[in-house]
């Protein structure tokens, strides 16, 4: 039984005949921040979606605090509320205000009471500089603001781990910074995080570890200084040459 906060053991996943993950092994310690880099289609997103079992895995296992959460037949509700995930396309609920988006799951799933919950949600908005926008609807917010609301919505469930699936990829360049600042803040607070990202500068600045994925496997991993300055594997070198120029 693995001892890390989160562990993956030879995880395989196929969609039809497309073998997307070909044996992923990974350990994430509490408070660690790991960046997954690699070209589109290398399996980064699928890997994240397999961790919270949004996609059932075909082979291998996923462990959270020593519990096999990929066990067939396991009730996934309690597992998913411990793992927050934020998507590239925000996926806010458009018929609810930002505040309603945030309080829905704590109210229905954690059975939290109205006033205390509202106060807690407002504190979260305040913490990420969105207090003046929390009564607005998603279509009244910029992409960057929507994405920050999506982060707050995930945090409101008090997750133990946060997964971020290329959350700045759909944003206009001038809005990327405000979302990355939220991640910096979470990093400083010691949140355990796993990010799929194309923001190489950000990964270099903040990650404890960088994993380069290609063809459904982790080709190379290490501290960002080593991966970005002195990659050992030819495929990593080729990828970094194209993205860093």
């Amino acid at each position, binding site marked *: 039984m693995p001892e890390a906060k989160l562990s993956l053991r030879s995880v395989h996943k196929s969609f039809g005949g497309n073998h997307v993950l070909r044996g992923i092994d990974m350990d994430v310690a509490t408070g660690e921040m790991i960046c997954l880099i690699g070209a589109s289609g290398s399996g980064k997103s699928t890997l994240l979606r397999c961790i919270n079992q*949004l996609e059932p895995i075909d082979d291998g296992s996923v462990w959270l605090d020593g519990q096999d959460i990929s066990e067939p037949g396991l009730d996934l*509700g309690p597992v998913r*509320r411990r793992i927050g995930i934020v*998507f590239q396309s925000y*996926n806010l*609920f458009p018929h609810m205000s930002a505040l309603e988006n945030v309080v*829905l*799951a704590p109210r*229905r*799933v954690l059975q939290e009471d109205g006033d205390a919950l509202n106060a807690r949600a407002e504190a979260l908005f305040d913490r990420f500089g969105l207090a003046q926008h929390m009564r607005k609807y998603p279509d009244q917010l910029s992409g960057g603001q929507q994405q920050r609301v999506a982060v707050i919505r995930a945090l409101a469930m008090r997750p133990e781990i946060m997964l971020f699936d290329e959350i700045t990829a759909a944003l206009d360049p001038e809005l990327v910074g405000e979302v990355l600042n939220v991640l910096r803040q979470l990093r400083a607070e010691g949140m355990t995080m796993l990010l799929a990202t194309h923001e190489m500068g950000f990964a270099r600045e903040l990650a404890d570890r960088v994993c380069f994925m290609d063809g459904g496997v982790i080709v190379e991993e290490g501290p960002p200084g080593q991966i970005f300055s002195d990659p050992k594997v030819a495929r990593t070198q080729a990828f970094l040459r194209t993205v860093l120029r």
Partner: protein
Amino acid sequence: MNRRQAYETAQRRRSLTVAGISTAAVLAAIILLVPLTPGWPQVRASFFDGGVFAQTFPTLLRAFLIDVMIFAWSVPLILTLGLAIALARGARAPALFPLRIFGAVYVDVFRGVPVVLTIYLIGFGVPGLGLPRPWNSPYIWGTVALVLTYSAYIAEVLRSGIESIHASQRNAAICLGLSERDTMRYVILPQAVRRVVPANMNMLVALQKDVALLSFIGPVEILRQAGIYKSLLANFTPYVVAAVIFLIVTVPATRYADHLLNRDRDARS
């Protein structure tokens, strides 16, 4: 005014003039030519008798209230049953498979049979079982027939609305730990219902008209009352009165539904 604006104003004026002239020509042709037909004096006397119109209008309007009443109590029943059938058809759990089959058969049957036929079969068939009063009332069984037919249509509209909500919404809800049931109730259904309001408005306009079909099984509502007057006065004008009364209600309702549809389309583009 610059040259472009001047050109566009001239164009607009020209198309308005053409539209006005062609409308006037068509109207003039109808007004001048129809009275030249050999049967016109008889038709005018039996369909457009002003005296009969004035004499029957108040009673027919009162009879129309029965249509409105039947409509009013049918709508909540139709919406409730329609929602239940839509949810039954979307049920995924294997244990609920019979419910899914039932929903599919229900929709096929009641959309496949003409409303009039359903009204005849249920309106005459069920009271034929010899039920005691008031359970043999044509109001009850006529309503049942309308509810069965229209809930099948509404169920299909709702189901299309539910299926139009992108899977990412469901994923986001599931990832927050929401149950399937809460996901449907708080995330999917509110969006789906909003999306199909215009389509359902059109259904309700159609229902308001189809209420008149209950006249075949007994209730003295507007169509039957008009028929009674027709026999009594040997004149078809009461039917024209009934048509006018229906139009007074259905035209604004249809326009409102179209307005909702347009607003919806504009909002999405």
